[in-house]
């Protein structure tokens, strides 16, 4: 069933776009809508970005109805393994840098953050991002570019 196949990526999308602990609600609603409106789905189009767009809309709706910005409440679950295990200091530094990078992503203006989240956290292509967020391709490019620029300014000089 489609739900089982796309459940994980849908939850990930909702959470990373700011649904927080209401990601489940957003995803469930998105699946219900997706099935109800499957007739509006073009056979030649890819299902995943179409579904994720509904997820994104639901998330947007949900956060808007809460009357606040879609805050990114996330924690880093897996410690990076960029250093050898016998180098605890190096691991700590790498972990700290990730935390700072995540903070910097959080601090981006909402649209630039959405672009960065889709392109890198969800690893969608530019075209998929455009479809999911409902933006023209050029807008995806420019917002990603601006977002990356800010991130680089924020943490870039610390990247080694």
């Amino acid at each position: 069933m489609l739900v089982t196949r796309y459940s994980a990526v849908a939850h990930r999308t909702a959470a990373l776009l700011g649904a927080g602990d209401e990601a489940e609600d957003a995803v469930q609603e998105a699946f219900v809508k997706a099935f109800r409106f499957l007739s509006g789905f073009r056979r030649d189009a890819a299902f995943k970005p179409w579904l994720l767009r509904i997820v994104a809309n639901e998330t947007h709706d949900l956060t808007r109805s809460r009357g606040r910005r879609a805050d990114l409440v996330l924690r880093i679950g897996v410690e990076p393994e960029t250093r050898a295990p016998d180098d605890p200091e190096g691991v700590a530094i790498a972990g700290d840098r990730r935390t700072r990078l995540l903070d910097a992503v959080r601090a981006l203006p909402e649209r630039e953050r959405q672009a960065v989240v889709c392109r890198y956290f969800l690893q969608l292509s530019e075209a998929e991002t455009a479809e999911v967020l409902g933006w023209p391709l050029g807008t995806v490019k420019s917002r990603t570019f601006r977002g990356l620029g800010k991130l680089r300014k924020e943490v870039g000089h610390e990247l080694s």
Partner: protein
Amino acid sequence: MNSPDDLESELRALGEALAVPEPQPSDVAHTVRARLEALRGGSGVAEPSGDADRRDGARPGDVLPGDTRRGSSGPGRRSRRRPRWRWVGAGVAVVVAVLAGLTPQGQAAVGHILRFAGIEVHIGEQPGPLPSGVPSPLPGERRVTLDEAHRMVKFPFSVPTALGEPDDVRVGDGGRVVSLFWPGLRLDAYHGLLRPAWRKDLGGPFPEQVVVGTSEGWWISSPHQVTYLPSDGGERVMPRRAEPTLIWQRGLTGYRLEGAADVAEARRLAESVR
């Protein structure tokens, strides 16, 4: 080493390291299916087969906010298969849960709960024959005038203009419920959207989703059992038999209209509550 590629790959790695809670896909599938079945029972929803008639030019934009939107429901129509039922805001919530788990035995005896406007409807669980006899009053129920009722209850309510002055007005449970009576008809208005005020048990069919004015309502077409759930969580009022009932809400006030001849009549009366 501050090339764009470094930052981009760093971001990808960070994304992979982020912990996102993901419920069991089978649980999600189950809940989604239950909700679709509930919808299909009421409003003729397209089958999720993917073979439905496809309209050219239809795009994901068709499912944008403001379009297929809940003309009816607020932010709170979500459901989840969990004990903690969360009501987002105080809006309308329609919650359909599949009981009895995922086992084949459980599915055979599956029941649905529809939660809407302070009412819990349990479908498929009618416990034996419907109660008969004189219904017991609500806790602290008092006979009052309409003016007194407006002063005593904690919420705004209106009388259907199509019915005019009620023959009898009662306020119960410390002003949580006002009941208006006309021959053969009973209208309960209540303040109880966050905590269920009523439980209904019926064998079926699944309630029909209808539109009342601009909002959502549910029509229960057959006699069923209704139980009042007191606000203090105290002892339940004895269940009684209820005639076909329309439930809906206006603002934060829930309404249940009992005894209309059919759904059209019920809607006509309900829409005259202004």
